[in-house]
């Protein structure tokens, strides 16, 4: 019967209810979008680093292992590393951030890259041939509406698009290594070296050996690199997410509190009627909280749906994952804020004098 009462209350003022649900949905969408973007970005990075086909990564001293670093090291180290035990191939690449958000040009030696990664799968065009050629993965191409044979301006240089490739290998944009080296003033230098071993089982042994021999050079297995690609390893991002969650709780709390405050005011007389029928304080509070629960639940569902819409809108700039494991968390935050927000109006309703409530016009 309480459910019926709550449902009829929620249904009776559809505009107010829908507005409240929408406002609760906003923080849910905000949380899911931020989390989805973080995880989506890292998943994409993991997929691309895994697609290189290497077992070990070596970076220059002082380079950040999980971000685009402009620090380089002499490229002759590639040949030196190729001669180390268990190493069957060493491949240097140059990475240079572009003006795009979390976007970089990857300078590669096409032959070495194909050998290590198994080669690109072309959706259009062919491999890098000329110095101004660029390969673009289909994700980037579709976001920017690019095709093989066309031109694109990246980092103030006009590139000829030689091919569109399937995504999932190292990066989204590939150019000849020597072209990029000259462009960034780092001729004869590389940003990182990927190593393929004779047997992946030797990875730990090789990593230990290289760490000892090349002191100061960050050396890590690709598994370690992938493990580092998470929100937990970027304190700023973690703080940012916590701030967004805090704001979401605040918005949810304020919205539901205001909504329920208005609802209690509008239903003063009805609360008086329920009290005259013998409704206990717990029952009146229960009705208010149940209504807030409905708004919180509706807000959660709508928030989840809107996170799909935000993914569609943001897809052009960044990959956004749909993180199902965060649905109950975001929902819990919204519900918690909704119930918390309903407490004060609920207390108001409970304390209402039945005679005054019945006389309320």
């Amino acid at each position, binding site marked *: 019967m309480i459910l019926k009462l709550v449902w009829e209350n929620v249904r009776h003022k559809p505009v107010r209810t829908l507005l409240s649900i929408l406002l609760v949905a906003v923080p849910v969408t905000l949380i899911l979008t931020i989390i989805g973007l973080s995880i989506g970005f890292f998943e994409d990075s993991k997929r691309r680093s895994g697609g290189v086909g290497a077992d070990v990564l070596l970076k220059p001293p002082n380079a950040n292992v999980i971000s685009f670093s402009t620090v380089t090291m002499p490229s002759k180290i590639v040949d030196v590393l190729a001669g180390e035990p268990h190493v069957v191939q060493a491949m240097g690449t140059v990475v240079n951030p572009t003006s795009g958000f979390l976007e970089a040009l990857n300078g590669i030696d096409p032959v070495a890259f194909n050998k290590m990664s198994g080669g690109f799968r072309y959706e259009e065009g062919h491999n890098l041939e000329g110095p101004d050629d660029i390969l673009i993965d289909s994700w980037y191409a579709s976001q920017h509406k690019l095709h093989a044979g066309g031109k694109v301006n990246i980092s103030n240089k006009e590139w000829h698009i030689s091919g569109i490739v399937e995504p999932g290998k190292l990066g989204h944009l590939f150019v000849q290594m020597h072209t990029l080296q000259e462009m960034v003033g780092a001729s004869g230098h590389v940003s990182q070296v990927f190593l393929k071993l004779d047997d992946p089982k030797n990875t730990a042994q090789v990593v230990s050996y290289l760490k000892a021999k090349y002191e100061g050079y960050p050396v890590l297995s690709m598994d370690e690199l992938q493990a580092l690609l998470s929100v937990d390893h970027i304190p700023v991002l973690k703080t940012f997410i916590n701030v967004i969650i805090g704001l979401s709780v605040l918005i949810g709390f304020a919205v539901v509190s205001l909504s329920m405050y208005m609802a209690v005011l509008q239903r003063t007389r009805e609360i008086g*009627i329920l*009290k005259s029928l013998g409704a206990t304080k717990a029952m009146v509070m229960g009705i208010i909280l149940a209504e807030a629960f409905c708004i919180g639940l509706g807000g959660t569902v709508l928030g989840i749906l809107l996170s799909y819409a935000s993914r569609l809108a943001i897809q052009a700039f960044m990959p956004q994952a749909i993180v199902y494991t965060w649905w109950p968390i975001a929902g819990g935050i919204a519900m918690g804020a909704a119930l918390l927000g309903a407490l004060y109006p609920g207390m108001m309703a409970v304390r209402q004098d039945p005679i005054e409530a019945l006389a309320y016009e």
Partner: protein
Amino acid sequence: MSKPESIIRIRDLRKSYLTGKVSVEALRGVNLDVPKGEFLSIVGPSGSGKSTLFHIVGGLTPPTSGEVVVAGRNVSTVGDAGRTELRRSSVSFVFQKFNLLPNLTARDNIKTALFISGLPTHFEGELKNVLELLGIAGRLDHKPSEMSGGEQQRVAIARALATRPAILLADEPTGNLDTANSLAVLGILRDLNRRLGQTILMITHNTEAAEYGDRIVHMRDGLIVETSTTA
């Protein structure tokens, strides 16, 4: 011959309100006994204290002093929870403005009262009879806004009787009705009193309406000034 059992017993009842900083004495020592099964009308001008008396007997507000025993429960000593329990189990109200829950149908209004009283929410034989007697059996799936004033008041009476209260408290039940509906509602109340032995305490301005009761209590300035029996 033994004195009939009193279902309402009031002794030296006083009630003061604070209006701003001024204390207003609404009841100034009321004594009253209402036997079980009586239809009592309380009449008096505005400010006579009849509504205050009604609210205290109904457990909507506590008395300032004195003794008020309603259906065996001493209202003057119980707290808010005790008064809630009194409303839940022993008294029911019929108001001038009907006070039906506007979002619910007539059926759900009645079910809500049953639910709050902890009774089964399906309509049993006696309640079905009451609904037939009130002439609203065919209007149960309508919301208050879809009913006339007379129909709404009948639903309010049905809701009040559904919980089988010891006492039915009616506050100007015909105040918002036209003559025909007023006469119908008063007839129903008298019929319920006579056929079911329902104790009814009715407040009214209208002396003709008061005549439907077995006894009329006249109030003025917070006191009972006259008691008369009807023919």
